């Protein structure tokens, strides 16, 4: 039997990503995600309900404040479902960021004592959120039935938008996880960044308020594309938001790829820094 030879040497320059190793450790990835999910359900009284409460309450607040009081347009869709369709991917994004930002720090004992591809940690943090995402999504379906919205053929593109959400969350999550190891300051800035990000994402308002080409440029914020895509696929908002989607997809992929490279570049220092 041929045995694998591991080389230990100083890391330098552009490293190979060794994504195959990540595949070899896929079981660990899922078991870590399963750990976080199952711990969460054992630890908290409401368990899965939290997945609904967070976006649902935000939706109610938005409907009252922005929908009723500020009378913000909602592309001719009832405001509650207009905002909730955006809040489902948004809460997934926020939860993933929260979890992955802590993923390296809270697993210090693993990182300093056991070897495994460290990229698994932010990955599993994002995967954990998927369960919550689907619970919140069921509520969205119920609301669609309630408002009598029949999805158009565009629904078949929904998996693509879910994938885009994953890529975005993973990309930003990896960056934040990595930076968090080195810069503890980031932890303080983090809630503020999320809050600001929420307002530069078309959650409470439609991106159609902007004229082209500004609307497409808006897609540089990958969450803008995600949110508009969700609305289009599920609620059949007037037109296919093509420009914004392309820009968002590209920017999400760029963020993810750069993030993985940066992560790999500094990965070897984690054990020393933590």
């Amino acid at each position, binding site marked *: 039997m041929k045995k694998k030879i*591991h080389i230990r040497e100083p890391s330098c320059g552009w490293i190979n990503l060794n994504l195959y190793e990540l595949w070899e450790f896929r079981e660990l990835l899922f078991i870590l995600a399963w750990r976080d999910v199952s711990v969460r359900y054992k630890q908290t009284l409401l368990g899965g309900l939290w997945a609904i409460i967070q976006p649902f309450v935000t939706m109610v607040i938005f409907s009252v404040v922005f929908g009723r009081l500020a009378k913000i347009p909602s592309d001719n869709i009832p405001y509650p479902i207009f905002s909730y369709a955006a809040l489902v991917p948004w809460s997934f994004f926020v939860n993933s960021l929260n979890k992955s930002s802590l993923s390296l720090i809270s697993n210090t004992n693993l*990182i300093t004592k056991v070897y495994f591809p460290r990229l698994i940690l932010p990955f599993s943090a994002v995967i954990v959120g998927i369960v919550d995402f689907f619970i919140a999504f069921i509520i969205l379906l119920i609301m669609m039935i309630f408002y009598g919205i029949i999805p158009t053929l565009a629904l078949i593109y929904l998996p693509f938008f879910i994938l885009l959400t994953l890529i975005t969350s993973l990309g930003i999550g990896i960056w934040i996880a990595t930076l968090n190891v080195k*810069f503890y300051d980031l932890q303080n800035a983090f809630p503020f960044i999320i809050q600001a990000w929420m307002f530069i994402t078309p959650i409470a308002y439609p991106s159609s308020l902007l004229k082209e080409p500004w609307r497409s440029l808006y897609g540089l914020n990958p969450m803008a594309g995600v949110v508009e895509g969700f609305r289009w696929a599920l609620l059949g908002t007037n037109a296919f938001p093509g420009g914004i989607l392309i820009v968002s997809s590209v920017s999400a992929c760029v963020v993810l790829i750069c993030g993985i490279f940066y992560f790999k570049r500094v990965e070897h220092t984690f054990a020393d820094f933590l």
Partner: protein
Amino acid sequence: MKNFSITAENIGKHYQIKTGQRYGTLKETINRIINPFHYRKKLRSNSIDRKTDNKIWALKDISFTISHGEVVGLIGRNGAGKSTLLKIIAGITTPSCGKAKVVGKIGCLLEVGAGFHPFLTGRENIFLSGSVLGLSRVDIKSRLDEIIAFAEIEAFIDTQIKYYSSGMYTRLAFAVAAHMVVDILIVDEILSVGDIAFQKKCLGKMDEAASDGRTVLFVSHNMATIKRLCNRGILFHQGKMIMDATIENIVSQYLNNYCNTPSQRKWTSFEFPGNNHVKLLSIRAKNLQDKTIQTIDIQETVGIEIIYQINALQQWPVVIVHFMNAEWLHLFSSHDYYKHSSFIQTSNEICETCWIPGQLFNQGRIFIHLEISSLSPQKKHVNVKDAISFEVIDQRCLEEMKGPFGGQWPGVLRPDLKWDIKQNKTIFCFSQ
């Protein structure tokens, strides 16, 4: 050489020491980006050269080859670089220079219970910890019963481990680790957990691993264990490899020269402990053949030789030797008050030896405090804590670790006492 398992070539690892501001804060990084020139000037003005001065070498110039199936013990004091080396070999951290090649799958036990989560049950944690250590789900499933039986926690396997006692916790953790299928096993000072019976079980498992032809790298401060398990040793001191030889040589070299308190102390003329009246010149532990010893068999007599000078004293001072064990328990003290026969002659060098018979100390390290005092008027001239130390070992014990008397005999002392054994005529008869 084809058959190697681990080779290391000039491995080194250094850490930056952070001076003043923490290196790598957001503030500093932003400053550096905004104003690189100023930053560099500031560095220079502090006369700190980051390239050279602020490096601490945790490891330097480590080269060795370990062939397949060898069981190697790494010995050294805390901070000698053993754990860093293990981490480099395991891939947890990268070396700063040099290169190591490792052939085969590595199982790494730097900590018991890596990945354990208190809210999960024992069974769930077996799967968790198993996959962290690189076992596949199928493997864990097929060994589940074996692992549970090894850990001796059948009754509690579906209880959340936050309710476990620390013993149960470590037993479970080690049980998972012991069932890894690897080519190279790296173990860092974890066998010292659990009760004696469990420790023996673990040692047995390690023996098994070694006899299966796996390569084992083992770090422990328990010399008896390391001597029993390993056949080769590597001695580390302050990040450097001092010696690579058979385990017996390494252990004695380590005990003699690198343990915290030496068994012999001599002072140079400016730093003699004492005052104008009494000056302590040297103190050492020796055997009957007048050789300085670091380790002594439990059967042998030990002498504590004290050489001191007195000056302008009317009376003999009293020399008191206090004996402590490794837990700093005061075992007993001895003094020479009634032993002086001749009159005192000033400015003489005096050599006294206090003899401790064999079969009195228990196994372990003995530390000696020395005190030299006058009684009237009462005055302490010399008071040296932790002056010297030596190790008492039971040679038979090393050979018969597995026997009924294995391990440490209970009690702080182990005197050889007189026993009278008589056979009286039986009055009662046992029923036949």
